[in-house]
C-alpha cells in the first residue's frame, strides 16, 4: 500500500489542479450569470422578486430553447444559421394555422422537423458545408413565414397562452421552465449512451464510424432535435408575445450561437453543455435589456454593451483555460 502511494501522489497533484481549473471553467457560465444578477440586484433591488423575475426572464425561455436547438447542431460540428428565421416561421404558423386549423398546424410543424432531418441527411450524404445550406434555408423559412403571415398579427392558441401564463408558487415560471429544459436535455445528451454517441459524432467521427455507428443517423437525429427545439422555441415565443410577425425570430440566430459559446460550448469537438447553454441564454437575456436599462445605458449603446459583455465573459474563459494547460 505504501509503495503505491508515492507513485500516485505526484501524479494526482497536477491532475487535481487541472480538475480545479476544469471545474472553474465549468462554473464560469454560472459565475457570469451570478455576476449579472448581482449587478441587477445592486442597481435595482426590487427587480429580484417573483414578479421581477417573471418580467425580466419572460423572453429568456424562447431564447434558451433556440440556444439548445443550436447546441445540438454544434455538438455535431455544424452550425445552423437559419434557426432565427425558423423560429419566426414556427411563430407565424402557431399564430395562424395552429389556432384556426390545429391539425394542419401540427402537421406543418412536424413536417418542418422532418425538413430539418432531411437537411441533416443531405449535409452528410453530399458532404456539404452546413453554414451554406442553413444560410439558404434561412431565406426559405423567412419566405414561408411571409407567405403564412404577410402582415404582423395573428393570435396565439388559448392552450398556449394558458401554459405560458402558468404561475407556480414561490418559483417564477421562467426559472422553473429553464431548470426543466436544462435537466431534460442534460439527461438526454450527457447521461444516456446514445447521447454520448451523438456528441462523439462531433468529437471523433472516424472512430465512431469504425465502431459501427451510422454517422448518417447521428446527423439526422441531431438536426431533427434542432428542429424540435426550434419549434418549441417558436411556440414559447408566440405564447409570450401572443401575436406573430415574420421577422420575430431573426435575432435568435446570433443570440443562440452566442448562448452556446457563452455556456462553455465549443464549435468543434462535440464539446457542449446543455446546462451551460441554458445559463448562457439566461445571461444574454438578462444582460440584453434589464441590466442595461437599470444601468441607464442609452439605447444607442445597448447593442455595444451586449458585445462588450460577450467579449468580457469569453476573455475570462480564456484566462481560466490557460491555467488548465
Amino acid at each position, binding site marked *: 500500500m505504501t509503495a503505491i502511494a508515492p507513485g500516485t501522489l505526484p501524479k494526482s497533484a497536477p491532475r487535481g489542479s487541472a480538475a480545479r481549473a476544469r471545474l472553474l471553467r465549468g462554473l464560469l457560465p454560472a459565475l457570469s450569470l451570478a455576476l449579472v444578477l448581482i449587478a441587477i440586484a445592486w442597481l435595482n433591488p426590487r427587480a429580484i422578486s417573483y414578479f421581477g423575475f417573471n418580467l425580466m426572464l419572460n423572453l429568456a425561455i424562447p431564447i434558451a430553447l433556440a440556444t439548445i436547438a443550436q447546441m445540438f447542431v454544434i455538438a455535431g460540428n455544424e452550425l445552423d444559421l437559419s434557426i432565427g428565421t425558423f423560429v419566426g416561421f414556427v411563430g407565424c404558423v402557431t399564430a395562424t394555422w395552429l389556432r384556426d386549423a390545429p391539425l394542419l398546424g401540427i402537421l406543418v410543424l412536424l413536417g418542418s422537423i422532418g425538413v430539418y432531418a432531411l437537411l441533416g441527411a443531405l449535409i452528410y450524404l453530399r458532404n456539404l458545408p452546413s*453554414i*451554406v445550406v442553413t444560410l439558404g434555408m434561412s431565406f426559405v423559412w423567412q*419566405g*414561408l413565414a411571409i407567405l403564412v403571415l*404577410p402582415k404582423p398579427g395573428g393570435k396565439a392558441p388559448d392552450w398556449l397562452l394558458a401554459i405560458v401564463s402558468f404561475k407556480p408558487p414561490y418559483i417564477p415560471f421562467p426559472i422553473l421552465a429553464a431548470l426543466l429544459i436544462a435537466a431534460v436535455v442534460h439527461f438526454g445528451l450527457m447521461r444516456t449512451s446514445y447521447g454520448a454517441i451523438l456528441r462523439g459524432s462531433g468529437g471523433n467521427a472516424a472512430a465512431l464510424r469504425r465502431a459501427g455507428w451510422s454517422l448518417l443517423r447521428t446527423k439526422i437525429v441531431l438536426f431533427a432535435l434542432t428542429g424540435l427545439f426550434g419549434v418549441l422555441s417558436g411556440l414559447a415565443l408566440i405564447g409570450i408575445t401572443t401575436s406573430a410577425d415574420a421577422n420575430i425570430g431573426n435575432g435568435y440566430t446570433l443570440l443562440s450561437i452566442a448562448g452556446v459559446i457563452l455556456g462553455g460550448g*465549443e*464549435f468543434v469537438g462535440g464539446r457542449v453543455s446543455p446546462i451551460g447553454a441554458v445559463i448562457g441564454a439566461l445571461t444574454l437575456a438578462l444582460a440584453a435589456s434589464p441590466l442595461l436599462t437599470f444601468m441607464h445605458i442609452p439605447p444607442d449603446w445597448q447593442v455595444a454593451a451586449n458585445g462588450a459583455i*460577450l467579449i468580457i465573459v469569453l476573455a475570462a474563459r480564456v484566462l481560466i483555460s490557460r491555467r488548465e494547460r
Partner: protein
Amino acid sequence: MVSVRTLLEKPWIWSFVGALVVWLATIAFTGGYGAGGMVTAALSLAVFTVIVGIGQMFVITLGPGNVDLSLPANIGLASAVAMKVMGGNDAMIVVGLLAALACGAAIGAINYLLIWALRIPPIIATLSASFIIQSVDISYGRGLQIKPPPGFADFANWQALGIPVLAMLTVIFTVGAALALQRMIYGRSVLAIGQNIRAAWLAGVDVGRIRFLTYTLCGALGGIDGALLAGYFRGANVDIGNEYLLASIAVVVIGGTSVAGGKANVPGVWGAGLFLVLLLTMLNTFGVSAGVRLVLTGLIIVGVITAAGGEKAVR
C-alpha cells in the same frame, strides 16, 4: 487527366452557368426585351457583393471557423464616415474614400486583435465587434442623411458603352486579387494556413502576421464597399450593409471556395455575385411576391451547393 481537371474546375463554372441560365430564363420570359439593360444593372449591383466577397473569401480560406460577421456593421459605419468626411464636397472625395478605407481597416485589425488576444473563435469575435460597431454607427450617424458629393455619386453610377465603370475597375481589382492569391507569397501563405495551420507554421509561415493582414484586408474592403454603396445609392444609412452578411458568405461558397479553407477561387466570386443579382432580377421580372422570392432564392442556393457538392472527406 483532362477529365480530372474539368472536375476540379467544376465548382466555379457552376456559378457562371447558373448566372447564364437565370439570364436566359429572364429574357425568354420578357421575349428578349431588356436583355442588355439587365446585364448592366446586374454588373453594377454585383460589384458591391464581389468586393466584400473577395475579402470574405480570403478570411474563409484561412480555415474552418474563420469568417467575418462584422462586415454589415463595418459597411454601415464606413458609409457614414465617408459621407461625413466628404461633406458633399467634390474636393474631398479622395479623402473620404481614404477615411472609409482606414475605418474599415481599423475594424479588421480590431477583429483580429480580439481573436488573437482573447483567443475567441472568429465567429464570436467578429459578432461581438459588430455589435459594438453598430452602436458606434447609430450614435455617430444619428439622423445622418448626408448626400454624397455630386461628383462621387456620378462616378459610382458612371457607365461607358453600357458597362459600369465601377465594374471594370472591380474586374481589374479581382484580377489583382487572383494574382495575390496564386502568385504572391501572401496568398500562398493564406492557402497554406487554410490547408494546415500547424504545417504552415512549421514551414516558417508567419501565421499571426498573415491572419492579421487578412482580417485587416477584409475590413478595408468592407470600408471601401460602404463608401461606394453610399455613392451609388446617393446616401449613407445604418442598414445599408445588412444584406451583405449573407451575400458575402454565399458568393464565396457558391463560387467554389472551400468552407473548410485552403482552397479559394476568385472568378467564382464574380460568377456567384452575378448569379445572385440576376436571380433577384428574374424573380422580380416574373412578378412573384416577396415570400415566394425568398423561398426560391433559398432553395436555389441550397440546390446549387448540392449540385456543386462538397469536397470528399480527406480521411
